[in-house]
């Protein structure tokens, strides 16, 4: 089952197996007619209706959409009439049919546009993969990140030495995170490539706008950074505490 078939199955355009042969015949007929009809694009436009507008850029999808419309078989069958009687009758008939099938058409249209976006994303991912492998270390440990980690470790040592007698150890950490939020604008922002994952592709396919996805991914990565900082802070704090306990108990 290829992707077009899958799409048509999702959108509810089921086609019985027996129809395949007749459908291919009609398609062939249409193709033959194309050569006889002086303006072939017109007939195609009539058949597809408003789907043509969005599918114009993606010729392959457009053709696949034509291929998998079992319901539109009658439209294909009347194609020879176009050659003999002109396009007016066909237009009237197709309009009547399109009114009935407007909603699934629209859904298919939307789905195909999303599918195109997902395919673009996939291509982008495929092209980015080698470069990510090369520059992964540089991307992950930029100056601001190192600064954050070192800052958290130093704060933990300071808190263990002086502050924690008076208040919770998480209060200075939160203050430090607020300070980092302010300081982040003074650091050179490394060009963060949008990490295209299976999750983003799935979200795109489910109809969430790319802008929302990129923002949520950004927020997610920021939360991850804060969690990493918290881990480093907590680890350093415990480590210092245990060292202090060990040496203080050994001293006397």
């Amino acid at each position: 089952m290829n992707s077009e078939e899958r799409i048509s199955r999702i959108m509810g355009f089921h086609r019985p197996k027996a129809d395949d042969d007749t459908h291919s015949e009609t398609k062939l007929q249409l193709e033959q007619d194309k050569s006889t009809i002086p303006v072939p694009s017109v007939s195609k436009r009539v058949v597809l209706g408003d789907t043509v507008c969005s599918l114009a850029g993606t010729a392959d999808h457009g053709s696949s959409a034509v291929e998998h419309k079992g319901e539109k078989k009658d439209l294909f069958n009347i194609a020879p009439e176009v050659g003999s009687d002109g396009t007016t009758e066909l237009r009237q008939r197709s309009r009547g049919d399109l009114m009935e099938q407007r909603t699934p058409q629209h859904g298919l249209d939307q789905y195909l546009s999303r599918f195109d976006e997902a395919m673009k994303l996939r291509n982008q991912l495929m092209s980015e993969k080698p470069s990510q492998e090369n520059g992964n270390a540089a991307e992950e440990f930029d100056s601001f990140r190192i600064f954050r980690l070192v800052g958290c470790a130093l704060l933990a040592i300071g808190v263990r030495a002086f502050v924690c007698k008076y208040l919770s150890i998480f209060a200075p950490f939160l203050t430090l995170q607020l300070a980092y939020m302010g300081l982040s604008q003074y650091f050179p922002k490394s060009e963060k490539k949008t990490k295209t994952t299976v999750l983003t592709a799935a979200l795109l396919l489910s109809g969430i706008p790319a802008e929302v996805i990129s923002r949520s991914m950004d927020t997610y990565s920021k939360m991850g950074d804060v969690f990493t900082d918290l881990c480093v802070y907590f680890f350093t704090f415990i480590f210092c505490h245990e060292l202090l306990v060990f040496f203080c108990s050994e001293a006397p």
Partner: protein
Amino acid sequence: MSEQRVEAETATDAAAAAWLLVLSSVFLCNLLKILLPSCSSVISKLLQKDVEQESQMRSDIQNMKQELATISMMDEFARYARLERKINKMTDKLKTHVKTRTAQLAKIKWVINIVFYILQAALMISLIWKYYSEPVTVLPSKWLAPLERLVAFPTGVAGGVGITCWLVVCNKVVAIMLHPFS
């Protein structure tokens, strides 16, 4: 009386070193994970003893090809054809050999990976089992407010650092520390 005191001190030391034990386990696991590809290649080299035979075959084919280049096809056709057949036969044999060896190599690597992950899982489960009810280290509960319950999970000891929290923290920190080497 003194023996009891010594035993109690030893138990206290063991409890005090729990955080270090968990940390070193996590560190070792992560280190082994990084070294796993090289380890598996070394082990597979040790297990596969017919590499020399393969190199011998390669050199033989090379020699025969050189010999073939010196023979004139027109003048000594029979000899030429015989040698060519021999080369083809040996090349086929080498191909089969290499194919078998590659499959065996993949299998060894797969087994080593599986064994490693099983051991790692067993170690983690045993650590969690051991420190399920007792904290790896204890701090004054005031210091950990308002997250003391979360940090102490699943022990429920006020001010204690639970095994789950400590494992997560250790994993994260060790991953950061070992990132330049991976």
